[in-house]
């Protein structure tokens, strides 16, 4: 028998597939539905201090090979989110609370609330490319990232993940600073900053003009980032970007990802994407006589 079990910075998961933040992660009910699809763990939508409507529509562009989105971090605010966490908890699998803030203090207080709500880990969104004053704007500076992580680590007992942006040549510098500041795992990648112009309307489609590219289009960039991170770091890396079948999941795992997250795949394939990936990986492991998924992590390095 093959085992897909993963222990990720202390978090025990039945399999290495996780729901990525921002996809079906705003309500307890939708988180439960993703658990039913077979996910090993669930990351919530990134939650802030106050309710936030996000950007006006259009917030999404569909492409043949992915999506471009500028949701603008809509969320009901941390106070209202306890109720959703309570409901999501019924899934019986680890819930990772994703948060975003404008300062280290805000990150820390949000993380604390998430821990109170039962989050088994915290994911810091340091990488959203389309919300002014948040995310990527801070996530390209190693010092800023280090100070946020120190503050959050001091505030919570559960493991802390930092989700980084690929929109920089300093990814490794930022990740090393995060590691030094005590982060427990790195999540890569968030979306690529992008734009779609409609030539009939003669203007950008997204109301925010700029958005983030996701899906198969960014897979090669994500795999490259995970491969680089795996070589540079001693803490686990979680891979995300364009995963939608067992092959693309294995690409990340072989690049060094201890677990993978799936976002766009939920739209393109459906919630069953998690289970499909797991059964595909199991078959691959059987054919290749592997007993434990950890035997595959990082094998693409020589």
């Amino acid at each position, binding site marked *: 028998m093959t085992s897909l079990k993963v222990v990720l910075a202390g978090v025990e998961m039945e399999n290495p597939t996780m729901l990525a933040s921002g996809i*079906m992660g705003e309500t307890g009910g939708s988180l439960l539905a993703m658990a039913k699809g077979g996910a090993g763990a669930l990351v919530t*939508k990134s939650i802030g201090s106050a309710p936030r409507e996000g950007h*006006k*529509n259009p*917030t999404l*562009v569909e492409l043949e090979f992915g999506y471009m989105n500028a*949701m603008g971090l809509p*969320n009901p605010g941390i106070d209202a989110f306890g109720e959703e966490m309570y409901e999501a908890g019924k899934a019986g699998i680890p819930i990772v609370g994703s948060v975003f803030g404008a300062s280290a203090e805000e990150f820390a207080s949000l993380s604390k609330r998430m821990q109170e709500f039962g989050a088994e880990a915290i994911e810091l969104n340091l990488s959203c490319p389309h919300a002014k004053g948040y995310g990527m704007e801070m996530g390209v500076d190693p010092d800023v990232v280090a100070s946020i992580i120190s503050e959050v680590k001091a505030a919570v007992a559960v493991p802390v993940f930092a989700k980084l942006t690929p929109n920089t040549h300093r990814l490794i510098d930022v990740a090393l600073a995060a590691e030094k500041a005590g982060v427990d795992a790195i999540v890569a990648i968030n979306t690529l900053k992008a734009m779609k112009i409609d030539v009939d*309307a003669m203007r950008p489609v997204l109301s925010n003009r700029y958005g983030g590219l996701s899906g198969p289009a960014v897979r090669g960039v994500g795999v490259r980032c995970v491969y680089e991170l795996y070589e540079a770091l001693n803490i686990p890396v979680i891979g995300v970007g364009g995963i939608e079948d067992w092959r693309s999941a294995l690409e990340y795992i072989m690049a060094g990802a201890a677990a993978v997250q799936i976002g766009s795949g939920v*739209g393109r394939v459906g919630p069953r994407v998690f289970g499909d990936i797991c059964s595909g990986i199991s078959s691959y492991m059987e054919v290749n006589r592997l007993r434990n998924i950890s035997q595959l992590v990082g094998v693409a390095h020589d």
Partner: protein
Amino acid sequence: MTERFMVTQTAVNIASRAEEAEDVVTLRFDWDAPASPGQFIMVWIPGVDEVPMSLSYLGDRKGITVKNIGEATKALTSLQAGDQMIVRGPYGRGYHVPKGKVLAVGGGTGMASLLPALERVPTADVHTAIGARGERELLFEERAKRTSSNVRVSTDDGSKGFHGNAVQLAREMMSSTKYDMVLGCGPEKMLYFLHKLCAEKGVPCQMSLERYMKCGAGLCGSCAIDGKRVCREGPVFTGDELKDMKEFGKQRRDECGGRLRL
């Protein structure tokens, strides 16, 4: 190549505009995307907003029927023949076009989504109940007559037809005829009671729901009802599916994802 990587967003020109009732306009446009009854599209009015709209006409000359209730629908209902709007889709799971005797119950612009389904059933098998606040808001009565052997109208103010709401009218019709399937589209409160009625009478049903939609494509979760995506698993749900939904008729979400009582 160009085919395979074409933009999913398509600009269409309004071929015709028709005023259906007070503040309700049908826009027709040529667009050959395959679509089935009950599906919807995301309509972008550049500079204004992008909103979901059911397809009220299928085939190559498609149509939407819009009620002016706010900024986006105001812009849409102001469009004239020759103007452009930009659409993507169609999205969602529509009606399983039923066999046997059908009762269609439409409230508000709900008839827009129902009619393409009814037009695929032999006319003799269809009865239709159309609800409106008053006569001037009544929608698609003539078109319904072309697809139904029996069209009845209810108005809240009694200005035309049955005096009462569409569910009360449906109850009356269901007590005189045995239907194999009830289709409903309209305000959720109406659907909630219609669903109850069908359960009571033991008649299977399908209802089309609305939720706040951002992506329209099954990603963001803003349209979730009990974890189901109205834009993907819906907008049409079967009576059995609705039965298990705790939020149906009770709760929807605002733009932030916060809970609102219905």
